[in-house]
């Protein structure tokens, strides 16, 4: 047996022993997703048990080094762990901006002390982070941001406001882009970390078209941030910000693939039946679903290749922009088909049978995929400039 086969066997045994049955059920609603944090209320014992078991083993962040709460797995081992988790349909033990975004940035730019201090609580799900990038006047053109941190010797005093801050009202800490030099556009931003409980921080939820309110306006009114709490160098936060965006895009792009090789047409045929020829009844919908299946299965192969290359440093650094663009556009198309397939039933907004309008709300939510983390148009600009090297882009 090769080393990897032995590892697979070991992982299989461990999962069998440690993943509770409830955690092998499909995620039904937002409460089934474990975000962690100081104020996290576990939905049930199984969710808590699963998080704790994974955290102890380093499996919430399997490819992070052990001293920072990971399991120190190689890319091949990480892939095997993911495959084995998928095989038993195990839920993710912990989802968080700390894992997807801040963690990779700290691993790249943080000091040894910062890594130990911030990464371990992320891995254990103790501190929940939010992302303070966008401002009312600075969306796609993020570098024009104006939230300002005034230098007061051993600390900054931060004033300004952020917008679209996902889960700001539930987060414990924020990683935040703050201008610290007004004369220097790109080299005048510092990547700060601070507690959302700091004096002068307030949040105001914003209602989305889906009827949910997962993000906020965030206001900073003379917030004091110690001058130890920044990543990278002062005024060089843009480098950290961009690096982090690469990881954010990598994460968002997963949506289009929708987990396993699940066929959307196959699922509809099960739910709505087939005609005498054994085909979905509506031939045009069938054709659209089949064309979509082709694109999704193809994108899954792309996802595998991208991860294999990304994790081993073979991918073009801007290729996460392509993944995000393709993946999010696909996910939007998936939900258009889900709505078409569901017909008038899928229009119901709060009935029990539709789990509170899950399809309609989910469909509306996906429209943000090609906006958050950089819009599709911006992704195309980046591909044109950095990958295709087109002029003037």
């Amino acid at each position, binding site marked *: 047996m090769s080393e990897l086969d032995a590892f697979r066997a070991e992982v299989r045994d461990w999962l069998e022993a440690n993943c509770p049955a409830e955690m092998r059920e499909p995620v039904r609603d937002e409460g089934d997703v474990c975000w962690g944090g100081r104020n996290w209320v576990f939905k049930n014992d199984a969710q808590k048990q699963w998080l704790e078991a994974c955290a102890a083993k380093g499996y919430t962040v399997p490819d992070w080094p052990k001293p920072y709460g990971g399991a120190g797995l190689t890319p091949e081992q990480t892939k095997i762990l993911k495959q084995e988790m998928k095989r038993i349909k195990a839920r993710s033990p912990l989802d968080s901006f700390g894992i997807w975004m801040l963690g990779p940035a700290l691993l790249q730019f943080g000091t040894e002390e910062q890594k130990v201090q911030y990464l371990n609580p992320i891995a254990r799900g103790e501190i929940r982070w939010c992302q303070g990038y966008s401002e009312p006047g600075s969306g796609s053109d993020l570098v024009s941001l104006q939230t300002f941190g005034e230098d007061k010797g051993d600390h900054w005093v931060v004033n300004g406001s952020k917008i679209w801050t996902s889960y700001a009202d539930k987060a414990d800490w924020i990683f935040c882009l703050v201008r610290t030099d007004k004369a220097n556009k790109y080299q005048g931003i510092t990547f700060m970390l601070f507690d959302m409980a700091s004096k002068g921080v307030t949040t105001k939820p914003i209602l989305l078209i889906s009827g949910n309110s997962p993000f906020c306006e965030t206001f900073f009114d003379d917030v004091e941030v110690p001058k130890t709490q920044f990543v990278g160098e002062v005024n060089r936060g843009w480098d950290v910000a961009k690096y982090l965006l690469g990881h954010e895009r990598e994460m968002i792009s997963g949506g289009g693939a929708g987990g396993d090789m699940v066929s959307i047409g196959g699922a509809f045929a099960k739910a709505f039946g087939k005609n005498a020829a054994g*085909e979905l009844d509506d031939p045009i919908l069938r054709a659209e679903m089949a064309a979509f299946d082709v694109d999704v299965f193809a994108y899954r192969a792309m996802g595998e290749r991208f991860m294999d290359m990304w994790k081993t440093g073979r991918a073009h650094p801007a290729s996460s922009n392509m993944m995000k663009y393709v993946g999010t556009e696909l996910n939007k198309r998936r939900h258009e088909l889900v709505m078409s397939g569901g017909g008038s039933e899928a229009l119901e907004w709060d009935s029990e049978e539709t789990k509170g309008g899950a399809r309609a709300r989910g469909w509306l939510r996906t429209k943000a995929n090609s906006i958050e983390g950089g819009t599709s148009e911006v992704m195309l600009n980046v591909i044109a400039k950095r990958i295709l090297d087109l002029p003037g882009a």
Partner: protein
Amino acid sequence: MPLYHNDDQAMLKDSVAPFVAEQAPVSHLRKLRDSADATGFSCDLWAQFTEMGLPGMLVPEEHGGLGMGHMEAGIVLEEIGRNLTPSPFLSTSVGAVAALAKAGGTQAGRWLPAIASGEAIIALAIDEGAKHRPDRIATTATRAGNGFRLDGKKSFVLHGHVADMSIVAAKTDGGITLFAVPKDAKGLTADPRRLVDSSLASHVTLDGVEVDADAVIGEVDAGGDILDALLAATRTGAAAEMVGVGQGAMDMTVTYLKERKQFGKLIGEFQGLQHRAAHLYGEMEVARATVMKAQQLLDEGSEGAKLMVSVAKAKAGRAANLAVREGVQMHGGIGMTDEYDIGLYMKRDRALAEYMGDVHYHIDQVARMNGY
């Protein structure tokens, strides 16, 4: 296995890419076309392929080949696609080898070494109408003497008029049977037609062609699996070639966007073109990954291969088609001229799109394989 080329495969690419680009660039296709070449490919070039061992890449070592896989064959096919090189590689070295290797037996022993040594060109006589419908084969093979009598008509048979042997799929009493029909068989005629991409494909007539019992590839009535192997290999290979065609067209177009000026600017500065080029890049990358996945699954003998092969043929078909259409459009008037190569890419793409099942056929297959 990670989904990128390993060191050996990267080395193979490093030797094949410059070889094809130097020996058989697009001007090579033009030369054959403009001289109304009657063979459909250059025998000298095939001899050079043979020196490099390419015809026998997929042939098992015990039959004198290199025993490589579809991933490796795909590397060669991508370069053939990128350079629009006319070549019998796909039908002979990929499709025929897949069938013969799967079947084993007399015909494998007879033809695989000849393919590996570059001596045999093989044609695949599968299609019978204008569209690819391998589940509706009407050509019949009836028992006669100690062998069979073949009757029927085949179409879109690439290299059919020059092939040393044609693999003919025919209906027998209990299923499908594949036959190795030699070039000089009585009653076999091949009528070559020049296609839009300048290749030659034959209408083949089998009029009471008599073959011995040992002309059967594999077992009588059990040709379905062998045909499946042939189709999977050829479709994946055609998809790899289309990735090459699409990539070639895209590279040419992106280069043109950086050279052509209008309105006092390089046209590559216009966002209307940038976004379309960037979108095309994404589609091509996805197609490439998909084709590699299909190759990998075929090489592993995985059950999931069949689905992924159809996904690959469909996806590569869509992406390459986008590449050639955008290519011609973004070249403006010059893209419409015969002198400029981009139009040749469009023509080759059209022929490959139709070969062994078009996008619609494979999308339909994906629906069927998923139970709807």
